[in-house]
């Protein structure tokens, strides 16, 4: 199992995910740096993500939308707060309004990714900070219980085939 550990802090509203991959650090980093690769795993399978911009530089911005089973679209952005290639980066992840601007009425969360060589592969640690329970609720509502269930079934299929 690639996920090694998940720690949730209900009171501080943070979640830490530790995962182990067989590939080297530079390869895992490349999966995040290349939008075509990133969109193959970022959105839930029934709500695939399409990155229309991926300016992977400090202060730079990425923009993406996720498309639901009925064609619904939900747009978001990343703002790169820090980058230490290939060890770590941190982004602010928020919603985009219909005008393509950051939606200030919607919550954003902060995500920090770190990549370390471990056991011949890569250990990835992500820590997500939610500003509030409401934010967490809205972020979850952005995607889709149905998509999630379908995702689980699809992943099983992918893993079984490999």
């Amino acid at each position, binding site marked *: 199992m*690639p*996920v090694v550990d*998940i720690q*949730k802090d*209900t*009171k*501080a*509203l943070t*979640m830490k*995910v530790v*995962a182990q*991959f*067989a*590939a080297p650090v530079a*390869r*895992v980093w*490349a*999966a995040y*740096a*290349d*939008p*075509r*690769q990133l*969109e*193959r*795993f*970022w959105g*839930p*399978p029934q709500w*695939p993500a399409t990155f229309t911009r991926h300016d992977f530089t400090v202060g730079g911005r990425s923009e993406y939308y996720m498309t639901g089973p009925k064609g619904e679209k939900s747009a978001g952005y990343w703002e790169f707060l820090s980058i230490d290639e290939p060890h770590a980066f941190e982004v602010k992840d928020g919603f985009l309004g219909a005008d393509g601007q950051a939606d200030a009425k919607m919550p954003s969360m902060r995500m920090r990714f770190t990549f370390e060589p471990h056991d011949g592969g890569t250990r*990835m640690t*992500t820590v*997500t900070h939610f*500003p*509030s*329970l*409401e*934010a*967490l*609720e809205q*972020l*979850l*509502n952005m*995607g*889709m*219980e149905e998509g*999630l269930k379908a*995702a*689980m079934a*699809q*992943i099983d*299929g*992918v*893993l079984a*085939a*490999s």
Partner: protein
Amino acid sequence: MVVGRQPSSHDLDQLFGALADATRRDILARVMDADASVSELAARYAMSFAAVQKHVAVLERARLVTKRKDGRAQRVAGNPDAVRKANRLLAQFEERWRTRVARLDALLATDHNAARGRPAADKQRRPACPSSTSRRTPRP
């Protein structure tokens, strides 16, 4: 929808306002473990009894804690429902991350499969998604 019953926006404002303060989160963590009187709580912080009492009142209005009289003291207890709700939301988020990590793992595994000349196992590959930077090992 994912989260079932939606609390009113007023409830939510109170809840998040209450949780937005580090002292209040700390008080909540303590009284979730064991009830405490306001004086016991006040002894733990470098602030006045009145200030701690105000923090407790904010938590109480958000229904994160309950207060009851115990003689002359007021006992403060955590409300597990609120914490359960946060737990439930985080569990959903956890599932999303598990899926994401599994898909990233499958994507990385396609390098390996391609290098061995086997078809890629990742069924999520999008058609017509040309990329100048993605590495595709040519098949023999």
